[in-house]
């Protein structure tokens, strides 16, 4: 019998998958599964250490769209060339598929995908007499936040990520930067935090979240904001599209029937104003059980799996954002009022052309280079310091510029 060791992140969809694996093991009695569930940062650090040192501890790793291109490039991932005949690769959404492929070969299979969008409270908007037509700009968003902000009654104008981290506040701030025409690096790999675009973006960010956000915003990530929104404390929330299924779930959300969705705000441009992300399952090179692992991945990312989830938990809870067919499925569209917005957002995100000016890297809200995690986190901290009021926007930007410059120089980019 083969034992597959699977490293996963501890989010809801993954945990749901763990519970449903009986379906897989009954079909494949000769395969047993061993789960290693970790919090996102810990997971990333564990699997990266392991794959980079060829530790060989895992057969399947849950990895993001950030890792896939880098690792595939290095030859650390086994190509998924044997997913079965009825896997239907072409059903994968193009943006997502591009993000996990190299030379047209799939190196990881997307489990779910997301972009970002705005969730807001219909009831509060109505009360304040605000109507949403078309895509908002950040300036408009700021105005709305001002109107909604009513901390005495426990409602904050807007909730955004504030917790430092390249996958936390920087995911949002990068899209804001993109909207203001900024980019991480110019063509020579020089960081560009000294430009006016970043200044404008960060001014907006600190202003809107610092003044019309909840207290403690600097430690709010996705989960914290979700809690806040679900307990009715946020007027708006711009975050991952997957949040939609949670905020509309009456079991978890007090405001399930008051939520509406729209695209993430633009500023000088809409290019790159919403991010693209997917959690994917990949097989490290050197795994002894590539065949069994492919079987599992095929199962977990298949259309059948979606139906399995739907049959057990309802259509609203299936992992979204990976397959076109899902968004053509009437049952899903009925159960998921957010489906259209999600599809729109994902389709409009392009990892290659995500900035107004040309850029040398791949990724909307990140740059797919090994150094980025460290850089993103450091910059994220500097920006969260600005949000906390510990430094000014200018200071934060020049600190970010300096530290990124150091890292890039040290890494030998110039």
């Amino acid at each position, binding site marked *: 019998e083969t034992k597959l*060791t699977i*490293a996963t992140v*501890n*989010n*809801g969809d993954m*945990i749901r998958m*763990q*519970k449903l694996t009986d379906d897989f093991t009954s079909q494949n009695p000769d395969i047993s599964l*061993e*789960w*290693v*569930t*970790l*919090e*996102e940062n*810990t997971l990333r*650090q*564990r699997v990266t*250490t*392991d794959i980079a*040192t*060829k*530790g*060989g*501890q*895992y057969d399947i790793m849950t990895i993001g769209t950030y890792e896939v291109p880098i690792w595939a490039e290095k030859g650390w991932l086994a190509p998924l060339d044997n997913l079965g005949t009825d896997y239907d690769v072409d059903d994968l959404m193009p943006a997502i598929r591009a993000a996990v492929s190299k030379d047209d070969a799939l190196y990881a299979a997307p489990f779910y995908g997301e972009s970002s969008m705005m969730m807001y409270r219909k009831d509060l908007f109505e009360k304040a007499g605000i109507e949403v037509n078309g895509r908002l700009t950040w300036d408009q968003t700021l105005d709305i936040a001002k109107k909604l902000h009513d901390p005495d009654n426990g409602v904050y104008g807007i909730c955004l990520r504030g917790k430092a981290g390249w996958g936390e506040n920087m995911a949002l701030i990068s899209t804001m930067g993109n909207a203001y025409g900024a980019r991480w690096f110019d063509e020579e790999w020089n960081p560009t935090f000294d430009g006016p675009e970043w200044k404008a973006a960060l001014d907006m960010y600190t202003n809107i979240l610092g003044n019309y956000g909840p207290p403690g915003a600097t430690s709010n*990530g*996705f*989960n914290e904001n*979700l*809690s806040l929104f*679900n*307990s009715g404390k946020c007027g708006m929330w711009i975050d991952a599209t*997957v949040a939609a299924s*949670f905020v509309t779930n009456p079991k*978890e959300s*007090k405001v399930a029937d008051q939520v509406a969705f729209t695209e993430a705000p633009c500023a000088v441009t809409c290019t790159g104003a919403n991010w693209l992300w997917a959690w994917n399952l990949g097989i490290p090179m050197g795994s002894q059980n590539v065949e069994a692992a492919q079987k599992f991945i095929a199962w977990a990312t298949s259309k059948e799996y979606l139906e399995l989830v739907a049959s057990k938990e309802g259509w609203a809870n299936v992992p979204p954002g990976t397959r076109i067919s899902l968004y053509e499925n009437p049952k899903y569209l009925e159960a998921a009022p957010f489906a259209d917005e999600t599809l729109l957002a994902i389709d409009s995100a392009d990892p290659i052309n995500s900035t107004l000016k040309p850029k040398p890297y791949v990724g909307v809200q990140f740059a797919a280079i090994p150094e980025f995690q460290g850089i993103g986190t450091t910059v994220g901290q500097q920006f969260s310091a600005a949000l906390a009021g510990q430094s000014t926007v200018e200071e934060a930007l020049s600190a970010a510029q300096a530290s990124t410059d150091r890292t890039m120089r040290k890494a030998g980019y110039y």
Partner: protein
Amino acid sequence: MEKKQTPLGYISFSAFAWVVGLLIFFPIFWMVLTSFKSELEAVSIPPSFISFDWTLENYVEVQERSNYFKFAMNSVILAVGSTLVGLVFAVTCAWAMAFNPTKRTKDALLWMLSTKMMPPVGVLVPIYLMFRDWGLLDTRFGLIMVLFLMNLPIMVWMLYTYFKEIPTDILEAARMDGATLPKEIIFVLLPMALPGIASTMLLNVILAWNEAFWTLNLTTSDAAPLTAFIASYSSPEGLFWAKLSAASTLAVAPILVIGWFSQKQLVRGLTFGAVK
């Protein structure tokens, strides 16, 4: 000094002390209480203290998600295993240092302690590479070795101070009685130092139980202890406080109980015999 305690003094001191004590204990109490709430109640304001629907669903869910007992068993094996291995080394070393000291003994002791001041993450990569090459990743044996080495300095220190308190006479008497060195240690030294050894073991079990860096970074599943278990709860999506509390309660309960039972012993252990 106790002679003039008035009843009033007794009551007010007691009341004050209890208030302080309960404040200090409050986070743990609150954690346990929250673990019996539903997720919505866990975040509700004002918080509910008793009048909520007590539920075990969080525990059920935690157990469904990850097999608590497997992790707990690993914690026990690692903690006890590393302590036992450590004991063998530490006893011999402490014996030698206490009863056959040389000029270097004090230096050696302090050097041992200073090995504990290095941030482990600084040597993660070398260790990880070595573990990989020796096939020790995710093995209990490998982790037992790491925990043993981490705690060895403290064990040696503690045992050293206990052994120092044992009169040399008695060991000499055993020698006059014809005991060989192993017999001297097994029949005379160890039984006499039993309280000290017990406290050393307890402290090391606690330290090993709570060690969160190596146990997380060198394991995947087979050898993963409760620290890895809790690492999967730190922030899943959705409301999670109640589940988090349940998992936390499960992770700390065994060691908390052990700690409580052994607190008297521990004091001796922790003080390196410094407080008579």
